[in-house]
Each structure stands twice: as structure tokens, then as C-alpha cells.
């Protein structure tokens, strides 16, 4: 018996100290928590933000956005030239850049990638919208890519398409079935994917031959968490080094944590309140059942005026947001628009009440003018809280609010069928404002069969569309900025939606392990979810960079506890048996 106990203790002790002997040259690893699933690592199929971000680390695009100011900078191509009619673009891919397997990167890889997308429908799944206007893509020699477009396109330097190696992908028979995660995956980015265990983690190793220079550490691991709560906890314990997408409360909870540095960055997302302006299809057929009162722009303005945006930012975003105005967030400072004092609607319930009276909506006997439905997503903290505030704001101007928080797909259904009066929505903008602006053009409304639309705001305004068309072919950036701002002013004035807030991106990292990260933009920028690779690529390990302590103590204690319990039971049973024998 005693021997057994000793053996068990020895095992427990072994567990306690049995951490694998640390190698003298342990690789420096940056561990990043991701909360979103990885849908696919195939760059033609990956849609989720998490996977496109990892895709960028594996494959460089043709042109990139600089870290400091998000200006267009060298990607695989270092020079580009539009023709006089802006229909033909010539990109130069310089010599000297190589794939991670040592093969040179050439213009033929670029042409191969784009042509794959032009010829294979499946390859257009993720980034098809970039090439819809392409006519032909050719590579007359190893250094030159020539793209002919059907119409002038201002976003030719914003082609966020991972370029894949021709010598690997021409052997792929079906893009749909190629998971592209059997490491090492040949790529051109600063990291090479070596292992992917779905639902658990991804491992990448530094690409030592990266043309910008090798990263300053050895491996980059992405660890999947089911929720940001667990991710924040893991950061506190030192199990991961970098976390983003934190809720304000979680961000606050890390305020005084030793060895953790928080990064409050300007985000690319905005939150908006859709106000159904009388939704119609592209062909002008009314769809949905939005309250007719909202077709009157005076009513929409009154609603916007009755919402205290400052209070929402303070109480719901806990201050981690900026008050909303135009549809391009302030992080894109070149395109962001703020109303002038004359244009600005200040919070004024009294004026809103007067406006509603004037618009012919008197209060009824119970003080209510009419009832509106507010749709939001259940489980999204913002919607759950902000709806309470909106209910109160609206009741102040005599509008009863019927709050309906539903699941994600039900909310989708409500907005695509336009069966809402008010609804929460939000979009993430890109460096080039084309996407977010284009959302609100007449052409983005659904077709006659109610399908195929992208917009959820159903805005259709001749002035706006005309400005949109002009900016799309305006190659002088200053003039284009002016057009873009005028579009936002028009949007603000017509109120198909009230931009409530520009959410901050809340991130934190173990500064005892990593001293510095490159943010984009340099001032108030993000580390993760960039339009580029800078955050991960530019990370610098802290001097001593001790590998995260491994706590085997818990397992040892648990094993010891189990063992001693078993021992107790064994002893107990023996004793009972012994006494039973004696009794007999």
C-alpha cells in the first residue's frame, strides 16, 4: 500500500515538474486570440474578417496601404501607370521578390490570379466585385501586368486581392475543394501557414525571405476563442499576447493589469439606425411595409434630431466611440465628413416635436403620434441597450417604439424584405470609400423579384447618385474628396439612416512580452484588422521575451487530489473488507 502511495506521489510530482525541458533557443511566438471563426483559408473563398486578415499575411496584394497614413504603397508591384483614357493600367512587378519556396514572383502570377477570377465563378466568391469591371488581364513579360477595364475605375489601386503562386495553383483542379491549409502553404507574405487545426488554432512561421525583410520573431499563432470574455481572461493569464474586439467593459477591466497595455484605436466600423424611407426595388416597385410617415423627410429629420447621440456614446459605448455624422468613419480622415454648424442637427426634442406637429402628425389622446417598430439583433450588447435609450427618446416626441430584437438571420430577413420602420445596422468602411458610398445608390436596391440587393437603407436619390458617378471617374484626389464629402452631406440631410457612432476598436497586448506593435494609421490606429500586415509584421519582442509561463501546477494538484481520493477509497474498502472478514 505504501509503495503504491509513493508511486502515485511520484507520478504527481512528475506532473508538477514535468514541463518539457525548455530548449535553449525557444522560438519567440506571438499568440493572437481570434474570436471569429475561420471560414476558409482559400483566399478566393475566405469572407470572414479573421480569415481575410490571415490571408493577407500569407499572400501580398498587388498594391498595399502604408501603415502610417494608409496611402497606397508598394505591394507586389512597385510602379503603376494608367493610360490617358484611364481604361488601361500597367503595373510593374520588380525582380527580386520570391515566393516562400524560392520561386521568383512574376507578373504572370498576377495575371494568373486575376484571370482565374475572371474565368472561374467560384474564384469570384470572396473578391469578385473587384474584377467585375475588368475586360482583360495580360502579362506581356515577367515584369509587366496590363489590366484593361470596361470603364474607368478609381479603385484600381485598392484591389484587395491576394495574389497566389501560379506554379502551385495551376495544379488545383477545383478551387471550391482546395482548402489551402496544408502547411507549409507557399505564399508571398511575411508569414507562411504551417498548420491549421479547425476550431482550435493556426500556426504560421516567419517568412525569412520576405521581400520587406524577415519579421522580428519566429512564429505567429492564432488561437480560437469562443467568446471575447475567454480571450480577455487568457490575456490576463498570459496565455495569449494580443486580443481585439473587446467590449468596453472588458477593456475597462484590463485597466490596471500588470504587463498588459491597452490600445484604444479608431475603428473602421460605424453603427447606424436605418429609417425606412419607403423602400422600393430597382424598378420602383414598393416593397416591405415601412411606416408611410417615414417617407416624409421632415419626419426622418425630426427622429434624428430627437436622438441624443452624446448620451448614446457615453452610456452605451461607455465613451469608446465617436459621435456619428457622415458614413465614412474619421479614421479615414481624407474622406471623412463633419457637418458645418449650419448643417448640423443638434439634439433638440422640442424642435423635433414642433417639426412633427408641422408635418401633420398631431399627438393623440394618449400623447402618441404613431408607433414605429425597431428591429435589432438579439445578443448584440449595443442593440439591447441602445434600444432602451431610443424607446425613451422617441416617447419624448410622441412616437411609441415597438422593439423587436431578433436573431441575425431574422434581422437580415427584415432588412432585405424592408419590413422594418427603424433598424440597427452597421458597416465597416475600407480605405477607399467606394464600397460604403456605393451601398446607398439606387442600383444597390433589390431587383424586381426582391432579390440581389446589397443596401439595407433603400436610399435612392438622384443628387447622391449623380455625385457617386462623378467621384467614380474622378482621378484627381482633392476633387474626389470634395465629391465624397458632398455625398455624405446629402445622405445626412436626407436621413435614410442616422449614423449613431463610430466604434472604437479596443485591443490589448502583453507588453511584457511584446514591446511594440505597428498601428495603422500611426496615430490612434489599430494593431489587428488592419488593411495590411503591419500590426503582426512590425511586432517587436520585449527584450527578455520570456516564453509564457506554463502552469502545470493545476494539473499536478488535480492529479494529486484524484490520486489521494482513490487512495482513501482503497484504504476504506480494504478496512471494511478486513473487518468484515473478522466479523465472519
Amino acid at each position, binding site marked *: 500500500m505504501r509503495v503504491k502511495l509513493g508511486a502515485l506521489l511520484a507520478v504527481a510530482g512528475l506532473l508538477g515538474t514535468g514541463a518539457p525541458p525548455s530548449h535553449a533557443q525557444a522560438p519567440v511566438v506571438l499568440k493572437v486570440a481570434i474570436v471569429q471563426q475561420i471560414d476558409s483559408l482559400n483566399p478566393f473563398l475566405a469572407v470572414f474578417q479573421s480569415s481575410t486578415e490571415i490571408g493577407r499575411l500569407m499572400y501580398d496584394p498587388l498594391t498595399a496601404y502604408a501603415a502610417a497614413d494608409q496611402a497606397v504603397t508598394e505591394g507586389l508591384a512597385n510602379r503603376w501607370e494608367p493610360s490617358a483614357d484611364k481604361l488601361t493600367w500597367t503595373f510593374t512587378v520588380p525582380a527580386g521578390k520570391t515566393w516562400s519556396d524560392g520561386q521568383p514572383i512574376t507578373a504572370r502570377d498576377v495575371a494568373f490570379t486575376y484571370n482565374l477570377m475572371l474565368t472561374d465563378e467560384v474564384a469570384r466568391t470572396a473578391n469578385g466585385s473587384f474584377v467585375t469591371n475588368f475586360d482583360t488581364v495580360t502579362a506581356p513579360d515577367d515584369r509587366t501586368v496590363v489590366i484593361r477595364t470596361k470603364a474607368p475605375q478609381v479603385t484600381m489601386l485598392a484591389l484587395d486581392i491576394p495574389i497566389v503562386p501560379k506554379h502551385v495553383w495551376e495544379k488545383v483542379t477545383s478551387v471550391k475543394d482546395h482548402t489551402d491549409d496544408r502547411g507549409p502553404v507557399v505564399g508571398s507574405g511575411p508569414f507562411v501557414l504551417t498548420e491549421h487545426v479547425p476550431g482550435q488554432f493556426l500556426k504560421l512561421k516567419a517568412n525569412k525571405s520576405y521581400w520587406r525583410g524577415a519579421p522580428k520573431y519566429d512564429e505567429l499563432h492564432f488561437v480560437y476563442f469562443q467568446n471575447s*470574455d475567454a480571450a480577455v481572461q487568457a490575456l490576463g493569464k498570459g496565455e495569449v499576447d494580443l486580443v481585439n474586439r473587446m467590449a468596453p467593459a*472588458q477593456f475597462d477591466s484590463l485597466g490596471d493589469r500588470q504587463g498588459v497595455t491597452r490600445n484604444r484605436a479608431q475603428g473602421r466600423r460605424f453603427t447606424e439606425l436605418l429609417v425606412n424611407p419607403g423602400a422600393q426595388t430597382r424598378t420602383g416597385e414598393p416593397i416591405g411595409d415601412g411606416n408611410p410617415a417615414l417617407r416624409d423627410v421632415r419626419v426622418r429629420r425630426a427622429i434624428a434630431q430627437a436622438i441624443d447621440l452624446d448620451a448614446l456614446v457615453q452610456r452605451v459605448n461607455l465613451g469608446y466611440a465617436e459621435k456619428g455624422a457622415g458614413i465614412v468613419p474619421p479614421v479615414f480622415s481624407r474622406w471623412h465628413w463633419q457637418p458645418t454648424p449650419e448643417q448640423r442637427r443638434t439634439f433638440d426634442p422640442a424642435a423635433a416635436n414642433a417639426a412633427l406637429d408641422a408635418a401633420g402628425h398631431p399627438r393623440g389622446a394618449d400623447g402618441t403620434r404613431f408607433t414605429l417598430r425597431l428591429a435589432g439583433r438579439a445578443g448584440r450588447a449595443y442593440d439591447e441597450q441602445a434600444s432602451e435609450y431610443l*424607446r425613451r427618446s422617441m416617447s419624448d416626441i410622441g412616437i411609441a417604439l415597438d422593439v423587436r*430584437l*431578433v*436573431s441575425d438571420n431574422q434581422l437580415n430577413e427584415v432588412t432585405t424584405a424592408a419590413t422594418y420602420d427603424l433598424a440597427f445596422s452597421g458597416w465597416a468602411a475600407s480605405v477607399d470609400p467606394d464600397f460604403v458610398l456605393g451601398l446607398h445608390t439606387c442600383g444597390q436596391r433589390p431587383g424586381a423579384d426582391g432579390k440581389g440587393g446589397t443596401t439595407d437603407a433603400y436610399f435612392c436619390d438622384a443628387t447622391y447618385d449623380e455625385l457617386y458617378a462623378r467621384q467614380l471617374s474622378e482621378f484627381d484626389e482633392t476633387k474626389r474628396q470634395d465629391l465624397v464629402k458632398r455625398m455624405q452631406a446629402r445622405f445626412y440631410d436626407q436621413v435614410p439612416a442616422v449614423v449613431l457612432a463610430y466604434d472604437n476598436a479596443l485591443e490589448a497586448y502583453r507588453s511584457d512580452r511584446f514591446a511594440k506593435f505597428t498601428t495603422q494609421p500611426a496615430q490612434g490606429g489599430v494593431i489587428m484588422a488592419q488593411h495590411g500586415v503591419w500590426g503582426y509584421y512590425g511586432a517587436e519582442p520585449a527584450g527578455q521575451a520570456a516564453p509564457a509561463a506554463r502552469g502545470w501546477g493545476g494539473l499536478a494538484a488535480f492529479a494529486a487530489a484524484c490520486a489521494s481520493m482513490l487512495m482513501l477509497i482503497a484504504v476504506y474498502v480494504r478496512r471494511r473488507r478486513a473487518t468484515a472478514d473478522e466479523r465472519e
Partner: protein
Amino acid sequence: MSRGVFPADRAGVAGAVVLAVAALVALAAPLLVPADALDVTRVSDAAWQPPGAGHWLGTDHTGRSVALLVVRGTGTSLFVGLTAAVLSVGIGTLVGILSGHVGGLFSGALLRVTDFFLVLPSLVLAIALSTVLPRGLGTIVVAIGLTSWPSTARMVRAQTLTVEARPFVDRARALGGGHVHVVVRHVLPAVVPLVLVNATLAVASSIVAESTLAFLGLGDPTRISWGALLHQAQLHGAVPRGAWWFLLPPGLAIVVVVLAFTLVGRALEAVVTPRG
């Protein structure tokens, strides 16, 4: 076998007392909780306060009192538990009596369906149902009720078969008693005690099921229930913050009430089937 060593009845009484208190709290909640105290737009207290003088169970992420939230959640949790149990036991009783009484092919088919639902993982099915149906309290009730009836059906069927095999039922039939007569006069009275026990136990599991669905974010977000509070606690980072006061009370409330229902159910069971 004599009973009495195991204090099922005493535990049952304790459970009943707890339930009475819970019911009182649920009914009195509108009086106990001032109208504005849980309105996030009107609350001015600091968020995440640990228990102390002002709030004896601390405050949540918006500064609302956790104690008041738990009081307010009592009604919803009890309501869902009770209605789901009634639905579940109702379906179960109906199916059980039908399949026991009617017999033949129809009975076989019913039994097949019952067995089928009996083996299906009920939580999986309830989750599936609540994603498919529109969000709301009704959906939760239906999702729980529709997935938890088979055990009742099985039991009621067995009891029905036993009762119908007895001589006095045959006599009643011979005397011209129709289906309705037999079921109402003979089967129902024999089944009711069993159903009652089942209903009590079903309330217990329904409350747990409600909290699970709410925790997974499938509940009615406009209502406060204990499960919804735990969902909030998780959503807003109570665990990394160490805010045990937001996590503990709603969970304990669930445990206490569920335990109370279980104890009462077992005590009733002991009365109904004296062997137990």
C-alpha cells in the same frame, strides 16, 4: 418496505416553502422593484459595484442593482418553467392516454413517435426550434414543451394500460360506457397523480432549459430572466472582471428553485407510488 428513514416529506415541505416564497417574490416584484430602478436610461449608479451598503448584491454593467434584477427575473423564469411544463405534460398526457387507450396501428405509430422523441437529444432539438421560430418568450416555452413530453407520455401510457386491464373497466365497458366515459371516469383519475408528479419535475427541468437557451443567446432579450442575466454577465465580461456578484445570485436562484421543485416532486412521487 417501510418509508420514513429518508426524510422525503420533510425535504418536500422545505421545497414547498421555498416555492411559496419564490411565487410571492414573483407576484410582488412590481411592488418590490421601483419602476425606474431597472431602466438603463434612468439608472445613475456606477457600474460593477461589488456588494456593499448601497446595493447589497452589487450592480451590473449598467449600474442596475443585481438584487433587484434577480427579483425581477423570478417571474419570467417561473412563468416559462410552469407554462413549458404544462405544455410538455399536457402533450405527454394526451399522447400517453391516446396510445394506451386506442390501441392498434394508431397506438403503435404514436409509440414509435414517442420513442423517437425520447431518444432525440432534447436540448439540441430545443435549440434548433428556437433558432427556427421568431424570438420571444412563447418560442422558448414551445421549444421546451415540444421536446420534453415523451417521458410523460411513456409513463401515462403504461398507467393507462394498467388501468384499462383492470376488471372494473371491463365492467364499465360491458355496461355500455363509451371511450369518453372510460377515459374520464377511470383512466384520468388514475393518471392524474402521476401527471402531477411529472409536471412538478418538468417545471424543474424547464427552468434549467430556459436558462440554457437564454445563456446561448436564444432567449427573449427584452425580458429579464435568470438565464438572461447570466447571458448578460457573460456578454459583458463578468468572469474576467471577477464580478462574482453578477454571476452567483442568478445561478443560485435557479439552483434553489429547481431544487425546490425537484424535492416537492419527489415527495409527491413518494406519496403517489409508496414503494419509491
